């Protein structure tokens, strides 16, 4: 026999009570892993959405992010520049997308509405945005010859204009050089959705040439840099700043306001949930171990008489708490793993969050760090509870402990 074997035997002494405590520790552990994993999955989606929308790094004119443009393309930049050349040759970079941000009116002849446009290489833009730009009708133009420039139109804007795939519309905007009015006829190639209903009410994607023709400019607004690995972004920012000080470099996280808002909210919600779960586990373990300590007061007196120090009695209970915690986290990990692996097959959808028109898949991310921290927390919690409840009994006068009935 050693101390661990003795602790195991003591855990099995009142099996039903120990199993209930292990079950509660397991439920607590699984709940934290699943809730935390869901939050992490949500963060991952938001990071991916933000980085696909803005690019991992946005390159622009120095004043682009600091000031408001008084005229279109006031802070635009040439598409072919030193930074672009450097990035095209850099093996860390997966894709470079030039973009033009512009706005104006879109008209079907009878009705004109405000639009917010993006001039881009449409096929590459759609590929990069992936499931954050869903084609509802039509197809993304891939350079096929057409009479009119082709655009992608937000589904809500199309509905308001009564436009369909193939409809001919007119984009009206202000020119960059003179501030005069210009118009370009376009044809709707596809109706698309970003999942944001407010965005879809104003959304227009055109090719770069069409946007430049409308604005009468040869500049672009930004150059979006998409990298192979997200964790290389900070290093790339430093490299770019050192390489070329003529431009501004904005990482995705400084533009992703929605991600930061959701993260702050979820951190509070899931943090509070985690604390409640921890408190429930703590009280349950304290309750169980306190009963065990009271029942074993006479035995504690005997062991003390035989020469066990109070710290050794406490250590015995702490080992028992540790075994309960370990058993709990092992079962909790298995339950959480089963949920993580099963959810993708169930294809469950979360309802659309406020402001969005699309839901998103209910999935849970498996995180080694979260698992390690949660496991350590639950085990330490059980050991701490055992320490707290056994301290008093272990220090009780031996005569009183032996006389305990």
């Amino acid at each position, binding site marked *: 026999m050693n101390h661990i074997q003795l602790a195991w035997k003591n855990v099995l002494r009142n099996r039903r009570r120990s199993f209930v405590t292990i079950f509660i520790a397991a439920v607590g552990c699984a709940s934290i892993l699943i809730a935390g994993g869901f939050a992490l999955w949500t963060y991952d989606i938001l990071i991916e959405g933000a980085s696909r929308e803005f690019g991992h790094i946005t390159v622009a004119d120095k004043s682009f992010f600091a000031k408001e443009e008084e005229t279109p393309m006031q802070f635009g930049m040439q598409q072919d520049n030193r930074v672009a050349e450097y990035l095209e040759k850099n093996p860390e970079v997966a894709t470079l997308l030039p973009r033009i941000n512009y706005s104006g009116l879109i008209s079907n002849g009878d009705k004109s509405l405000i639009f917010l446009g993006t001039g881009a290489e449409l096929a590459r833009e759609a590929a990069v945005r992936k499931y954050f730009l869903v084609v509802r009708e039509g197809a993304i133009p891939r350079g096929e010859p057409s009479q009119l420039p082709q655009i992608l139109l937000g589904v809500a804007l199309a509905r308001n204009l009564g436009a369909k795939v193939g409809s001919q519309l007119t984009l009206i905007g202000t020119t960059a050089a003179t501030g005069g009015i210009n118009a370009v006829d376009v044809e709707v190639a596809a109706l698309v959705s970003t999942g944001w209903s407010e965005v879809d009410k104003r959304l227009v994607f055109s090719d770069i040439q069409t946007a430049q023709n409308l604005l009468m400019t040869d500049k672009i607004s930004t150059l979006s840099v998409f990298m192979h690995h997200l964790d290389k972004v900070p290093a790339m920012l430093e490299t770019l700043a050192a390489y070329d000080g003529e431009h501004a470099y904005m990482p995705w996280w400084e533009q992703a306001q929605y991600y930061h808002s959701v993260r702050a909210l979820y951190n509070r919600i899931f943090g509070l949930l985690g604390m409640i779960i921890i408190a429930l586990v703590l009280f349950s373990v304290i309750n169980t171990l306190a009963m065990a300590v009271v029942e074993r007061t006479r035995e504690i007196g005997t062991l003390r008489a035989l020469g066990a*120090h109070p710290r050794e009695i406490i250590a015995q209970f702490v080992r028992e708490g540790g075994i309960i915690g370990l058993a709990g986290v092992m079962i909790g990990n298995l339950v959480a793993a089963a949920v993580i692996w099963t959810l993708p097959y169930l294809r469950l959808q979360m309802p659309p969050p406020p402001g969005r028109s699309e839901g998103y898949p209910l999935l849970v991310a498996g995180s080694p760090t979260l698992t390690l921290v949660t496991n350590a927390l639950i085990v330490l919690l059980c050991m701490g509870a055992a320490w707290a409840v056994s301290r008093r009994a272990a220090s009780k006068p031996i005569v009183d402990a032996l006389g305990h009935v």
Partner: protein
Amino acid sequence: MEHPVIELNQVVKHYRIGDNQISALRGVDLQLQARDFAAIRGPSGSGKSTLLNICGLIDRIDGGSYRLAGEDISELDEAACTEIRRKRMGFIFQNYNLVPVMSVFDNVEYPLLLNNVPKAERRALVSDILDKVGLTGFAERKPDQLSGGQRQRVAIARALVKAPLLVIADEPTANLDTDTAEHIVELMKSLGHRLGTSFLIATHDDRMTRHCDKVFSMQDGVIA
């Protein structure tokens, strides 16, 4: 010259119950020599259990002195008393006080575990003492699978496995029938002699006192 195992001089012990102070021991003098097999007897409330607890270092004296094997231990702190109990004393209780989740072997092994005796040596010592108390075939049984007499044999084995200087026994035969009690007393005495261990036994069982080398009679907190 060999020191007495126990040497109490004018030992006093008070208890406070509410506002009242009760004197459980009122100046007890007692000497126990090596290998003595001694009993303390007296009516309930005479102070014999208190005296036993003091001798076993599970209670502290309020006055007088206590020397154990020549060393004054009257003022030792709790940790030092625990070390003495661990290394030099064994205990036998009226209700056996075996740990129910441990097997016979484990119960007897526990004091050796506390003393960090190596595993191989522990096994040898436990097997040897179980053989001496006649429980060789019972090593893997749990206490609830044993008779009262067998349980008390396990308690004796647990008390003697580390060959202590002194064994404190509180009414060890009170829950046993006459024949079993006789066997238990004889076993304790013979093992005590063989191992050089002194016994101090609280009892009011005449079957026990007949076998004792010394009998201390307690009355109203003093040895009569």
